[in-house]
């Protein structure tokens, strides 16, 4: 997501400190949708996500005069969202490392899709992943988004949070690591598992559709 309409951080910060309401309104309009989505990755319902984003903006007001510009303004704002969301998140009652639940281990594609050790081509596809209908088709694109939204909600918590921040909200891996205080390697594993699971859901959906 590109914030084409917003000026550089230094300008935005100076205007907010000067209590320029137009600037604040522009910022709210540009960033709130992504913030609601990010918050929704942590909390159980839309209402709580809305609350979290309001609280976060109030946190931005409280903090803007002391903002040090060590990170980008957007990353700083999202970190406030993440922190507020974590204190509210019923879904965040999960300090158990996911690896201990086996969620971060093992192959992301069903091993049965690949040829066995006794085959002349071990580890190669038994049959290629079937082609998907073209996303140029509006009905296909709409159905893809519906399937993805549902599948995203069903991902393990840490995967859902990372995929939402990276692929839905469009943050860089550095930003996400900073927001969540996780290592680059950990972030990549969660992103990888999440994306693979979502791709598999779409594949299952299009296979079922093709047979219907």
């Amino acid at each position, binding site marked *: 997501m590109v914030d084409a309409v917003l000026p550089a951080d230094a300008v935005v910060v100076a205007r907010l400190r000067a209590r320029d309401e137009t600037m604040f309104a522009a910022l709210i309009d540009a960033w709130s949708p992504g913030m609601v989505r990010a918050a929704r990755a942590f909390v159980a319902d*839309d209402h709580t996500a809305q609350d979290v984003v309001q609280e976060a903006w*109030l946190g931005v007001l409280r903090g803007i005069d002391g903002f040090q510009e060590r990170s980008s303004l957007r990353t700083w704002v999202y970190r406030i969202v993440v922190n507020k969301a974590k204190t509210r998140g019923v879904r965040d009652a999960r300090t158990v490392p996911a690896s201990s639940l086996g969620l971060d281990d093992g192959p992301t594609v069903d091993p049965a899709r690949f040829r066995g050790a006794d085959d002349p081509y071990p580890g190669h596809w038994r049959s290629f992943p079937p082609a998907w209908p073209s996303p140029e088709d509006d009905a296909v694109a709409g159905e893809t988004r519906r399937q*993805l939204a549902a599948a995203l909600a069903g991902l393990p918590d840490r995967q859902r949070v990372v995929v939402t921040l990276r692929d839905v909200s469009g943050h860089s891996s550095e930003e996400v690591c900073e927001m969540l205080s996780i290592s680059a390697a950990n972030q990549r594993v969660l992103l990888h598992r999440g994306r693979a699971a979502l*791709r598999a859901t779409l594949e299952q959906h299009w296979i079922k559709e093709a047979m219907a």
Partner: protein
Amino acid sequence: MNCDEFVELVTAYLEGALPLETEQRFVEHLAECDGCDRYLEQIRATVDALGHLPAQRLAPEARDRLLAAFRDWPAG
């Protein structure tokens, strides 16, 4: 490189995080395997579609409340 190894390296590849030697083996495999080419393309399509999920808007009342709070906020 085998396909079952390839599918586990897709994210690291897209992140530009593969060691050079592994990236070369990854790209070589990609060039000769239609199944893995399709797999990578479908991961890309998934990521692209995620970036187009409908926005969840902030409720208008919440926006009004925030602007009112901003107006009343003491100057720093």
